[in-house]
């Protein structure tokens, strides 16, 4: 099988219904290839974050199936803890552990989950901090870091598990405008290294420059998907054009 075409994540007719009856995902199907960078855009409440969170089962699904490396993510017998070590996740609010230093944040899961010796976890964490440009912040608590720095530590924390795919849930939405660039730069480097990435974002420039494919979601449906050039310039879909028009008008 050609590695370019190897499917890493596949979603089949995924539905998500909340207990109050609202349908957050209405039969979404998609396939993400190994090494591919996929951006998901759409208005708030369109289900794009919900979809992302079903990929590592932080969110349950009502029907359908999600396969990661051929393993059914939502099957009862699946070892979720083992599966999640392969899918790094970066959150909008960073969710760093405030009682630990940047270095300890990154070391925790390798030591606790992978049972790595502390020295090895430490050198891995130090290398990752250097990679995201924060080698000098190893001993700082999250409260002593700017939003952009915190998010870069959070990316390093997810990378420490050496995941096969990175899931980004609006990673720059909580940042001051001048801090967005430093986080996007780290993500660009990651994409250039061939990391498989699924990115829920409002950063159209990033999607256009980095993504291999852009998905548009609206009201729980996957409405449209295409390569970025075609997606942003010549898409004929009504709803997508209306959305892009609104974003451009801001």
């Amino acid at each position: 099988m050609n590695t370019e075409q190897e499917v890493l994540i596949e979603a089949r007719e995924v539905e998500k219904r909340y207990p109050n009856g609202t349908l957050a995902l209405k039969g979404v199907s998609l396939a993400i290839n190994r090494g591919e960078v996929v951006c998901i855009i759409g208005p708030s409440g369109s289900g794009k974050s919900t979809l992302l969170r079903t990929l590592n089962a932080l969110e349950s699904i009502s029907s359908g199936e999600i396969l990661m490396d051929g393993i059914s993510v939502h099957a009862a017998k699946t070892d979720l803890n083992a599966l999640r070590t392969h899918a790094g996740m970066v959150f909008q609010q960073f969710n760093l552990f405030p009682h630990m230093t940047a270095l300890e944040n990154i070391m925790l899961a390798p030591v606790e989950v992978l049972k790595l010796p502390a020295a090895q976890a430490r050198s891995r964490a130090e290398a990752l901090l250097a990679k995201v440009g924060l080698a000098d912040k190893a001993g700082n608590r999250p409260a002593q870091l700017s939003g952009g720095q915190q998010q870069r530590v959070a990316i390093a924390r997810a990378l420490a598990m050496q995941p096969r795919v990175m899931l980004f849930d609006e990673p720059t939405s909580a940042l001051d405008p001048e801090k967005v660039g430093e986080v996007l730069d780290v993500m660009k480097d990651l994409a250039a290294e061939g990391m498989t990435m699924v990115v829920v974002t409002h950063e159209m420039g990033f999607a256009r420059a980095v993504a291999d494919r852009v998905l548009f979601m609206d009201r729980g449906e996957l409405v449209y998907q295409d390569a970025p050039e075609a997606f942003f310039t010549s898409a004929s879909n009504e709803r997508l054009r209306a959305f892009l028009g609104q974003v451009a008008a801001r």
Partner: protein
Amino acid sequence: MRPASPWWRLLTVALVLLIGAGMYWATLKVNYQWRWERVPEYLLVTGGEEVPAPFDGTVAVSGKQIRITPLLGGEAQVIPEIDVVQVSDGEIVFAGNTVGKKAGITPGPLLVGLWVTLKISALSLVFALVLGLIAGLGRVAHNPAARDLAAIYVELIRGTPLLVQMFIVYFFLGTVLNLSGFVAGVTSLAVFTGAYVAEIVRAGIEAVPKGQMEAARSLGMSHWQGMRKVVLPQALKRSLPPLAGQGINLIKDSSLVSIMALTDLTKAGREVVSSTFSPFEVWFTVALMYLLLTGALSVYVRKLEKKMAHD
């Protein structure tokens, strides 16, 4: 903010003095005889410990040593190191008679009571924290049985008076399981306080943002790993001030164990009152002694809080 005028402090002092004077005036109205000088001897006994005779017998004195030969026959007993011998050679004493005193200062009934109160409170607090942590984790558990059991425990304990619980533990459980007053006291205080600690722990866990557990789970950690390494350390830090308040309540509630034939500080106070007929002085002293314990605890916790804030 503009610094407040020092006159407010003066006003506080004046008002406190006024209230004190009012109380003094009130005692004059009831014609109360203040005898503060009688209190210290119940704190520390300076006269030395009295040595009683173990049985009826004839005394033989040699220096600081007394030898008692039983009247009814049998082994003679030697009592060494009596500092003030109060019997003479050849005298006949009866069981319980004072034959002499040992020198030195010994703790009086109030200090002994304070020690008992301290022991009961410290032991109960340790058990209450363990019990409360377990029940608090039960309250937020996914398992319905754990959740329901913890909820029943908390509601049952918070819904009934401590005094009634103590009667049940002492008279019912105590009789069935043959518990001593001390064990019954520690048990009822720990179970009672544990319910409140559980609610404090639950509130502390729920105050930690949901994203913390999500981040831990997304890294492949189990629920328990996330709880232990990520959520609980943050939750307990937040819980420290209310836990300190609960610890202070525990010390004060421990005064109720005096119903269990247990001579704690309150029971000791009651006994001293009945022998001195100076209730005002004794109860003021007892209150002050409780205040020392609770004050020490709150100073300690405040220090701990400061230390944790720096970490």
